[in-house]
């Protein structure tokens, strides 16, 4: 037993030494993901955190209803820091700003707007959109919300007059008075902590889990190249069991994966200010991710006959799982069918854990689902890989 462990350690150390000498491993497992994480986080601004737009308003009315729309409706957006709202004198000027992309939407309040609402006459607010669909939708929502409030007032007056057939001043007055009372439906806000990693952290973690497969492949690749060079036969003739060789290879993969991940975590923390989360919890999650990747690399390699084939198959599996697992786009923006499908990938579980850690109050219990699924994937698939590899070595 002790001798088996000792030879496993010797094998692991040999594989690690080979990899340190081979610069292409460092290139694939560390430099490329670091570069991509850097590029992604520099190039893609944190747009979902800082939505900001500008609206231009042409007020031909100047009446009380127009100023209510501007100061209450759009004013709220401006006070919340979502949009700048500017009054523009003429349609032509506003249109020019819109077409130049300097404004997200243009709102035109027609002359006689306030008078028409008071008299229960039809009137229309004109809304023009530019190059930014989301800005346009926000402006549209504000305008139609205002319109529905105006409709509500008219509806209440209409209800009051419909019963008596004509405008009974007392009833209408009661209706108008009831408008001042609190609305029957109240809106209560409940803040939820954000469990979404920032852009820099997301891409750092996404690249790390995608490329860790290129680090964890080397254990199985070493067995393959030993077979090709004939070293394997000679080792098996020596008092080294197949089990301890495979164990050594798996150990080497784990160490390589953990080292690559650690370098990436440190690198992205320093370079792009990725906020991975509490170190201890990150360590638990990352180690589980490395175990999952090692297990997958081990089992995938057993379907290949040469080291070249094993490497190719491993990158195919790694990239397919990565694409499905939401490495290129946050899964939160994907339709539910994709989200469900993504659960078969370690990437989705790992990134879910990283998202959870964005919440400062998160504890081990919160990331436990991710950790357990990742460990189960790694141990389960790794066991299958070891059994298959052992059978192949015995043959």
């Amino acid at each position, binding site marked *: 037993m002790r001798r088996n462990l000792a030879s496993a350690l010797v094998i692991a150390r040999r594989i690690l030494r080979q990899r340190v000498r081979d610069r*292409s491993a460092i*290139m694939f497992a560390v430099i490329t993901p670091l*570069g*991509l994480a850097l590029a992604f986080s520099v*190039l*893609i*601004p944190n747009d*979902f955190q800082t*939505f900001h737009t500008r609206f231009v308003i042409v007020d031909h009315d100047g009446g009380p209803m127009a100023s209510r729309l501007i100061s209450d409706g759009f004013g709220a957006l401006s006070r*919340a*820091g979502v949009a700048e709202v500017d009054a523009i004198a003429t349609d032509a000027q506003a249109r020019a700003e*819109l*077409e130049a992309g300097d404004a997200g939407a243009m709102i035109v309040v027609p002359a006689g707007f306030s008078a028409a609402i008071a008299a229960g*006459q*039809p*009137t*229309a*607010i004109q*809304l*023009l*959109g*530019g190059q930014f669909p*989301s800005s346009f*939708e926000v402006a*549209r*929502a504000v*305008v*139609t919300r205002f*319109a529905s*409030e105006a*409709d*509500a007032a*008219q*509806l*209440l007056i209409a*209800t*009051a007059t419909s*019963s008596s057939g004509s405008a009974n001043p007392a*009833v209408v007055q009661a*209706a108008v008075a009831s*408008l001042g009372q609190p609305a*029957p*439906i109240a*809106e*209560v*806000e*409940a803040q*939820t902590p*954000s*469990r*979404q990693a920032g852009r820099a952290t997301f891409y750092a973690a996404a690249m790390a889990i995608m490329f860790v497969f290129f680090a964890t492949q080397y254990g199985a690749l070493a067995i393959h190249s030993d077979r090709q060079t004939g070293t394997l036969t000679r080792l098996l003739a020596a008092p080294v069991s197949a089990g301890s060789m495979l164990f050594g290879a798996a150990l080497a993969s784990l160490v390589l994966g953990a080292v690559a991940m650690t370098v990436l975590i440190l690198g992205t923390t320093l370079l792009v200010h990725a906020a991975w989360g509490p170190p201890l919890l990150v360590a638990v999650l990352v180690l589980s991710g490395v175990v999952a990747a090692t297990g997958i690399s081990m089992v995938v390699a057993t379907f290949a006959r040469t080291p070249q084939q094993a490497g*190719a198959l491993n*990158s*195919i599996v790694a*990239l*397919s799982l990565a694409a499905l697992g939401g490495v*290129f786009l946050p899964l*939160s*923006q994907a*339709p539910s069918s994709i989200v469900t499908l993504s659960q078969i990938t370690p990437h989705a579980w790992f990134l879910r854990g990283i998202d959870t850690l964005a919440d400062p109050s998160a504890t081990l219990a919160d990331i436990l689902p991710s950790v357990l699924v990742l460990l189960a994937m790694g141990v389960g698939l790794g066991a299958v890989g070891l059994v298959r590899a052992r059978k192949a070595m015995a043959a």
Partner: protein
Amino acid sequence: MKVLSMVRTNLVRALRDRTALFFSVLLPLILILVLGLTYGSGASLRVGLVDADGGPLAADLAAAIQKSPGVAVDLRRYQTVDELRDASSRGIVEVALAIPAGYTAALEGGGSAALTFFTPPTQLALAARTIVDRAVADQTALVRATQFAVKTQGTGFSAALAGAQGLQARVPGVAVTVQPVNAASTGNGFSAGAQSQLVLFMFLTSLTGAVELVLTRQLGVSRRIFASPTGATTIIVGESLARIAFALAQGAFIVGASAVLFGVSWGDPVSLAAVVLVFSVVAGGAAMIIGALAANPSQAGALGPGLGMLLGLLGGAMVPLEVFPPAMQAVARLTPHSWAMDALAVASQPGNSVVDILPQLGVLALFAVVFFAIATVRFRRVLVGAA
């Protein structure tokens, strides 16, 4: 003839490499599919809802939110408030709304009820909220009028509600006329993804193929051809054509497969053919440069994909250029990718012809000329030096 057989040999070699086939055939399709499904629904708003009430007013509100005019709402129902809160904090839903138990009963009884919104601290959530608020405001107006009618006229709630709904349809109200200035881009959700994947993968595959070029050199194939009565120019032309044919095949595959599988409309076929052809020359030229510069296959193997990804990212073939800061948008103009993407976008607009993309094609042609000039000089030096 010699040139053609060099092209043929190169393509056969590429087709035999099944790993390369995965990267040039399956991976782009997977990415088009994932990106298309994700962005394909357009600007749909993800609203999470817990309906603990189950009454008709709660159902009306949910229906009104789903039918919000002008926005596609993806209404996702959750069983418990905890699930809803989790979905909200993870950004899975942009707006999260809980209708309490007894909502309908309270309003029907003339009382009031409170809706709970769960909002993560992002500003887009606030912006998206306005869209759901509209549906809530409509129901508030209706309930207010109904409760007023019940109180003043003594009618039953449901009769008064029906009356108010009838009146709501007839109140002149304030109309909102809407006029988008720039028509939204045409095509289905897969189109934009397919355009960027076309540009990304033509270049990436071509650069990855540069390994073959280095192998040809390293194995001494080039030197042996050179020893035969074949001039350096013929070899360079043959290898270049092979690289261009390689990129062209990749481009044709993505265009064809995405059109057949995902119904992507590529617009004017002449413009499309022109862009794909010129861009394959650019990509081929870049591959020749890598092939001439790299000292060994593993160097080319690391340099090619890395450069292909980086230029694709810089040029807006991975994420749209709009999200870049202005300085980066200027830098993007230095990549052939951004010009090709631009040309494809213009070409896919209805009514545009190849004339409208002449400027972009001109810039791409310039890239091609410069790339081939550099590659030819370097390659000739390598060939003649080795001989």
